[in-house]
């Protein structure tokens, strides 16, 4: 499935606090790399969350969230612990279904389909998403089988197809050169950073439309972290990425847009550069300047 052939929804209702203006199309990061280009600002919407409320039993965890993520952009979700950013991320591929007593109302659209519609096939939906977790969680299988897993569960048996997907994904995840000679060794034998990149490769193997990353670097050392961050930068070309992070520098470095959550509410969302340098909300400013959180 080619992403570009997929028709996109024509009505992007920007909930971005500052609508992008033509003049801001070239924003340079500290390293001089363009964080957000014009294409990012004009990207068609890939994920849209509308009036989303989520309850764990009686406790409401998300309050009326409205958020849109453009195609081939990186959206960072930041906020203090327990603010609901991971919960929101898990709403996008319906991983919250696995938790008992969860009630969700509102709409989440991915591409053009409402993923909470009653006739949605959850398994088919998850095949369109890749997810990377906080802690690297490779399966106790070989590196090859880890990457091929997504295709295997779809019933792909053709060795050539699998080989191609494994190689492509490992190259995309920047792991190919390190592991190409030991694809049949256990994925658990890799270092922490390599394991996390293996998990990214696993998520990429099924060519997902959206890549969801739940604090992917929180358990890694700085070197491995920067490796992953570079990777996110490259992956942006092919994938839409939603990343949850605690690390504000990371959000600033990798994302095009940032959404700040607090107590289950979306406080502010905007261009990353803008949000970090000139937040509209007082609370955002307090949080990013380290006054709470």
């Amino acid at each position, binding site marked *: 499935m080619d992403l570009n052939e997929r028709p996109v929804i024509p009505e992007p209702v920007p909930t971005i606090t500052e609508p992008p203006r033509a003049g801001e199309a070239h924003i340079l990061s500290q390293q001089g790399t363009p964080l957000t280009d014009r294409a990012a600002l004009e990207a068609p919407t890939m994920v849209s969350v509308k009036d989303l409320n989520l309850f764990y039993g009686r406790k409401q965890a998300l309050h009326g969230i409205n958020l849109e993520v453009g195609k081939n952009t990186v959206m960072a979700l930041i906020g203090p612990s327990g603010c609901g950013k991971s919960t929101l991320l898990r709403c996008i591929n319906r991983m919250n279904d696995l938790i008992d007593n969860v009630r969700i109302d509102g709409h989440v659209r991915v591409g053009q389909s409402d993923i909470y519609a009653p006739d949605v096939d959850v398994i088919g939906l998850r095949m369109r998403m890749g997810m990377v*977790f906080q802690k690297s969680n490779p399966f106790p299988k070989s590196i090859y089988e880890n990457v091929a*897993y997504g295709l295997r569960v779809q019933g792909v048996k053709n060795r050539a197809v699998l080989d191609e997907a494994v190689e492509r994904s490992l190259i995309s995840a920047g792991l190919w050169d390190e592991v190409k000679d030991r694809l049949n060794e256990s994925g658990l034998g890799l270092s922490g950073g390599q394991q996390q990149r293996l998990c990214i490769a696993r998520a990429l193997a*099924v060519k997902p439309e959206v890549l969801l990353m739940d604090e992917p670097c929180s358990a890694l050392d700085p070197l491995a972290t920067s490796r992953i961050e570079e990777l996110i930068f490259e992956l942006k070309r092919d994938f839409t990425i939603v990343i949850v992070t605690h690390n504000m520098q990371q959000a600033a470095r990798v994302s095009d847009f940032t959404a700040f959550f607090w107590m289950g509410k979306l406080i502010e969302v905007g261009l990353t550069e803008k949000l970090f340098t000139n937040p509209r909300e007082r609370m955002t400013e307090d949080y990013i300047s380290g006054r709470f959180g």
Partner: protein
Amino acid sequence: MTRIPPALIRAKRTDRFMTGIITMGGFLIIAAVLGILVFIGREALPLARSGKSRTNPSLQVAPVAGLLADESGKVIGLLRPDSGVECIALPSGTPLATLQDGPVRPWKQATEPSSRGEFAVLDQENKLFFGRLNWEKPSGDPDPTHWTPTVEWNGGMPASMDTLLAVRALPPSGLATQPSYRVLASGKDGLSWTEWSEGALTWKSITIPELQDTTQAIWSADGAHLWAGTRSGNLHFLSMEGEPTLNSSLAFGEPVTALGFVLGQTSLLVGGEQGKLLACQAIKKEDAFLLQWFHQFEKLNGPIRGFKSSLRDKRFLAWSPNHVVVDHLTTENRIFSASAQDTRHASLSARGEFIYAASSTGELRSWSMDAPHPEISAKVLWGKVHYEGYEKPEQVWQSSGGTDDFEPKLSLMPLVFGTLKGTLFAMLFALPLALFGALYTSQFAHPRLKNIIKPAVEIMAALPSVVLGFLAGLVLAPLLEKSAIHVILLPFFALLAACIVAPLWIRMPKGFRLGWGQGRETLWLIPAIFIGLGLCIVLAPSFERIFLGGDFRAWLLAKHSITYDQRNAIVVGFAMGFAVIPIIFSVSEDALSSVPKALTSASLACGASPWQTAWRVVVPTASPGIFSAIMVGLGRAIGETMIVLMATGNTPLMDWSPFNGMRTLAANIAVEAPEAPVHGTLYRVLFLTALLLFALTFLLNTGAEVIRQHLRKRYETF
């Protein structure tokens, strides 16, 4: 100097103290286990010991015609043709008494006395006497000088024969008080035989050409048959009821020089001129007798002159002029061997502890022998042995019989086989149920359902196995016997019903299915299984009638010659499976539940269905735990005693048929231990089986642990 706070000192002291206690506890446990092992081993070890013998000082007595050994080893009777029966004390050689009554001396011939002290004499006047030496021992008096020997004489009628060949005392029958005797003798007209009870002898001559060169003969225990060995090297078996007829013959290969029975008088020992020693038996098959050589022993040096059997077990004495040996029939082992020049007569005490040999010059040699377990050898325990009354070598466990002369059959193979069979059937029943149950409960069941299922299954483990065995043996077994065909058909019907219900469920409206809740759709299977059960009950009798001729058990016997025992392997499978299920379920459910959520999440996020996640990720990751669950279950099944004891017939068969029973190692110990005399052979063999059970479990657990560690390394997570 900083002062260490006293709280820290206390904490450290407590820490050291507790470490010490825990270490000591661990070592004590290891020591206890090793202690048990050592004890069991020490009880079983004497089985492997070969017999010990000691040469006693020899005595000089007058030349004898036979030795009459006594059980005590303190006295011996010497058969002396010129002076009667002389009794002396041992080992001093002090004369106690010489019994001179009875036949007129010097006797022309005295037969070799039997092990029971019976002999026959042709006296100077050619009269035939039957004698038997008895010792009257005042109870508890160990001093042989206070014992009085008597010889009980019978007969005394003219014999008109030259040589006595075989004499057999038959126990008194009917109103008679005296034994009767069957005698085979040879004279100028050849072989003749007679049966004497009282009055004169009437000789009936035997005119069978094959018997012309008979050198040795012996009557069967009931006197109805006669064995005769010839110079030409043949063994003949004659029927002596009515007219003597030759039943069958066997070729021996060299001139027969000695015949004798082993205890029980079914195994006939045949000795030849070159020292060849074979055992033969006659098995009654319908009307005919099947004669076969069934044991072969090491050759003796020189021609075999005679045999004496022990009166307690299957060992026997054989001697040639320069060789005295004691062999065991079952094992064919030589327990004792001594070269003794010029041996004429020899004797073995009843318990086989003392061996005497007299030379032509009157030298009386003696030996003491200590061979407590001659009936055990590696071949007896593990191999096939040709037992008395069996047509071919077999592996049999039958530790005791109705009579004293019973040959114990102590092969462990049927027990090991039974153990494996019981375990296999239990596992066949328990493994699928427990493992799939655990998989369902941990991965698919609604948490609320799981909270009911798990404790409920674990309560199963609280049932004492004696209750399970009782229910299985007395309730389940008769029920199963009545409705065996239902039980066999039920899985098929249940599967059929499930196969019908599952597609129906998929066709249900989606809203209804989602409303029912994840993991609870299984409840729909319960009515399906009941429908299957109902169908089975309704249809099974017709099935039995149409395909199996109306009676499953009769059909089984007729078509496949399989007998259906009420307490069979299926009953054991159910009952022991029931005991094993909670263990396997509980341990493997824990293993499956403790697979990190991160892995299942990752798998589900990759688009795997819950079943794919369970099968491809959860089960492999939990495999070390599942493996140990199976091993723990296996260990329990192997060691389980009460259930197999009560739910099977404890028949030590070697047959995989699910319709008959088995006897396991553990149940065997429970059944036989109360009847095994302490330090006897059976007692030690039971300890050997305990050791075997111990080793089996130990090997199984060690192997399991090795594999588990290997798996764990492979599926190690976080």
